[in-house]
């Protein structure tokens, strides 16, 4: 029974418990949960005894279908991989901005501009290096969890590696944004300032958020097989 006194549908209760136990990208999680809800409803409907008592039919269907505790390890492994792929995509799509900024900083270089713009250029060069490594790692992670996973088992710690790659890229983006914004303000270079603003927004909205979610998924204790499949 729910808090407001109404009878809770046992299938809804099962789905609510499963939803609370799983973590991952919202769309992937919603899709998986909706499929499972439909599957459980089909299992209940197929029970020959469903006309006697819904609670009894659901109990028997859950025994056939698997309890939430039995389903969570497999579902969470898949959602953790989905979160790692989501983070890797965010890194692969946004890290090239850092490389572009390195060229922006380079082409707008002015030896007489002072210490701050030169420091910004130096930071942009280092951030571009971070971006190149992060992009390569993200691409490798996408391949390893995509078609390559047919032949190779997914490395258990891959989601954690992707999470920290995303975190590093996010920090590099934030630092570069700040440095370039400062440099651009001093040099009254508005294109750079705009680029830094975009970088800051992308960094915090996409990469940092995805990396944070990926760290949380990768740290979840998931009993079962050592590989992620």
């Amino acid at each position, binding site marked *: 029974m729910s808090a407001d006194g109404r009878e809770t549908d046992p299938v809804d209760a099962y789905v609510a418990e499963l939803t609370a136990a799983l973590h991952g990208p919202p769309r992937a999680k919603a899709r998986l949960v909706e499929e*499972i809800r439909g*599957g459980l409803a*089909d299992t209940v409907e197929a029970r020959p005894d469903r006309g006697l008592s819904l609670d009894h039919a659901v109990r028997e269907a859950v025994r*056939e279908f698997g309890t939430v505790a039995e389903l969570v390890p497999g579902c969470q492994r898949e959602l953790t991989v989905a979160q790692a792929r989501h983070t890797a995509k965010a890194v692969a799509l946004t890290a090239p901005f850092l490389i572009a900024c390195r060229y922006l900083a380079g082409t707008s270089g002015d030896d007489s501009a002072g210490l701050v713009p030169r420091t910004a250029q130096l930071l942009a060069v280092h951030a571009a290096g971070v971006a190149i490594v992060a992009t390569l790692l993200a691409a490798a992670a996408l391949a390893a969890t*995509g078609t390559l996973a047919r032949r190779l088992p997914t490395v258990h710690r891959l989601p954690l590696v992707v999470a920290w790659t995303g975190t590093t890229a996010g920090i590099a983006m934030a630092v570069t944004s700040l440095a370039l914004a400062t440099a651009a303000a001093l040099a009254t270079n508005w294109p750079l300032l705009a680029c830094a603003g975009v970088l800051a927004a992308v960094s915090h909205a996409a990469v940092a958020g995805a990396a944070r979610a990926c760290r949380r998924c990768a740290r979840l204790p998931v009993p079962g097989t050592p590989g992620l499949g």
Partner: protein
Amino acid sequence: MKADAVRGHLDGLLLAVLEPGPLHGYAIIAAVQQRSGGVLELRTGTIYPALNRLERTGLLSSSWQSSGERRRRCYELTDAGRRTLAGERTAWREFTAAIGSVLNPGPAPGLTA
């Protein structure tokens, strides 16, 4: 047969029942049970992450289909899935032939009078 014994062969089983055409999750598990004469026991719910994984690796494709008020995700084999299924069948034949020759040995060559 318990779920643990089936686990290593789950991908092959799922690909095989999808060979004739697209099916949704519950129909897939029903097809596995029907084809095995009810011998293979699987926790129905555990196939959903497996189906997601097979789709992620490009062996299956899927789409939502409406049936009355219910939406069901239907899966079908891709070309890569058909090739993988053929490979699974070959590997299974070789495996069962090797195990069979150990469990049911014929007369050893050179030992007959």
